[in-house]
């Protein structure tokens, strides 16, 4: 029986990332159309007992491709380990979250397995002949394309985080242990991995985000953004203008040349709402704008807004948000 694989993404402390459950949910949706088996696939040093959690979200099987050589993420080693498992089991479809790690090593997997790869899907579907089709944005969010795989196996796609809501669905979670023959990796060395403890959710996975723009006007004033973000457990982002002005680091940038995010709630503060910014957050479910310029383009691209001075509005709104919990 044909298999749909879902790549397991874990945090540094070994927990399965929510995006994995979202992608499992997408795989279960496909399975209902072609009665395939859904298998979660872990590649890394040691999976731990993750099969229970994966089974809860519909994984019929859990492949564990484990090796001490997979301790630090290295795209060559990971690609080699996954490709070997693919050649052995011949899955039709491989899905993963559009995470930095998957974007880094799946192109190598597609090269090693002669598979087709499409990144950052916002919808997936399957035809009666089990051909995968997806929807994805191109041209900086200015167009959305329907793309169908063509006469190729495996069909590999990554899915934008927050696109599917993770839904539980019973799966057996039967563990299958795989061994990996990893070629020696003398031409690549991980010298240092520094995990920065974050006070707030990662932008690409956050359920809510508050971003500040040029209107915030200084590094110190960004405290206002952090405060309101913390009042609702949101991630904190910024526009390119705020990053270019040096208020906050590049990691916080949302937009065409920054991160692409799709939270349920995106609050844009002091951001005019350029095409480039919208390209990075336009697939958010609800967009709120706070800006003092009534003609700011963001007011033509939002669900709710307050036309007002952010230095007056943010403290008041933060207090209101705090009353909710």
């Amino acid at each position: 029986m044909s298999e749909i694989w879902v790549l397991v993404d874990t945090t540094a402390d070994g927990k399965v990332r929510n995006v994995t459950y979202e992608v499992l949910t997408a795989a279960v949706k496909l399975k209902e159309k072609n009665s395939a088996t859904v298998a979660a696939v872990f590649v890394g040093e040691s999976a731990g007992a993750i099969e229970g959690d994966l089974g809860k979200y519909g994984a019929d099987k859990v492949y564990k491709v484990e090796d001490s050589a997979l301790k630090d993420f290295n795209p060559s080693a990971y690609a080699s380990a996954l490709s070997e498992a693919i050649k052995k089991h011949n899955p039709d479809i491989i899905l993963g979250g559009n995470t930095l790690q998957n974007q880094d090593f799946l192109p190598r997997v597609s090269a090693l397995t002669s598979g087709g790869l499409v990144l950052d899907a916002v919808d997936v579907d399957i035809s009666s002949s089990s051909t995968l089709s997806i929807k994805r944005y191109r041209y900086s969010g200015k167009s959305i394309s329907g793309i169908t795989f063509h006469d190729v196996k495996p069909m590999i796609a990554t899915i934008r985080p927050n696109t599917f809501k993770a839904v539980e669905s019973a799966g057996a979670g039967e563990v299958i242990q795989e061994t990996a023959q990893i070629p020696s990796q003398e031409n690549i060395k991980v010298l240092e991995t520094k995990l920065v403890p974050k006070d707030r959710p990662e932008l690409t996975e956050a359920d809510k985000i508050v971003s500040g723009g040029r209107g915030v006007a200084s590094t110190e004033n960004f405290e206002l953004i952090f405060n309101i973000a913390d009042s609702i457990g949101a991630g904190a982002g910024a526009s390119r203008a705020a990053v270019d002005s040096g208020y906050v680091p590049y990691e916080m940038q949302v937009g065409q040349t920054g991160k692409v995010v799709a939270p349920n709630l995106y609050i844009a503060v002091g951001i005019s709402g350029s095409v480039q910014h919208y390209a990075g957050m336009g697939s958010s479910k609800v967009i709120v704008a706070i800006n003092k310029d009534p003609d700011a383009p963001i007011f033509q691209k939002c669900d709710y807004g307050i036309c007002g001075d952010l230095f007056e509005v943010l403290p008041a709104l933060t207090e209101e948000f705090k009353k909710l919990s």
Partner: protein
Amino acid sequence: MKIVVIVRQTPDTEAKIAANSSGNGIDETGLKWILNPFDEFAVEEAVKIKESTGAEVVILGIGPDRALETIRTALAMGGDSAIHIKDENFGATDSYATAKLIASKIKAMGDVDLILAGKKWIDEESGQVAIQVAAELDIPQATIATKVDVDDAAKTVKVQSEIEGGQRIIELNFPALVTAERGLNEPRYASLPGIMKAKKKPLEEVTVDAINLEELGLAQENLGADGSRYKIDNIDIPVINRSLNVLKGGNSDMVESAEVQAAAENLTKLLREEAKII
């Protein structure tokens, strides 16, 4: 040392995008083209390495005739010479076939130490081609670099990049491929003398037929839309359809100080009860 920078031409970031008449591509009429913004960081980094080590910088562009303009921009920034792989079907050819074409040309050069590219092409919204070039050449890669340190004597490059939840530094032995993230450097503008000089720099043009496709495991029919591993069925221009419920002041567009509290309460209520989002 020898550095190759892979460059790509993309529509200007401000360009309006419309579907073409067949509905599976974009209408190129009147479109302004630029050097892919992330490739600018790659070119700048190569030129910086050249300035400190005396490296030779080869610009490698792939695309139809119009891509030559972009290649010249990269030469004007400081590239020494250029190769233009001409593929009129480019854009329809899938990423892996594109990567094979690029890799075969680099392989033929023989003595390349470092390959630089942008982290993604902003039109395709994908960074897979550069990585597939590394895979095809069987060399290590470090993507989304925010800092690059080359040790010419040791023939290694140290690369800092963002990972989920932090940062890391990896060291690659030459030959290696590195993709550039915004923040890596501040790309210089091509000066007027630079632009004049670029026109005289060596340029090799390779048409896709001239590369031995069979040796690459490719046939002519692997190129273009028919040979692609996926097909673009349609392109839609998303319509922004949002409720535009903007709270304004009583007497002017802006909410005045006395009205702020009411506006904050009102917005909170809408988000809670109507949008059910907080």
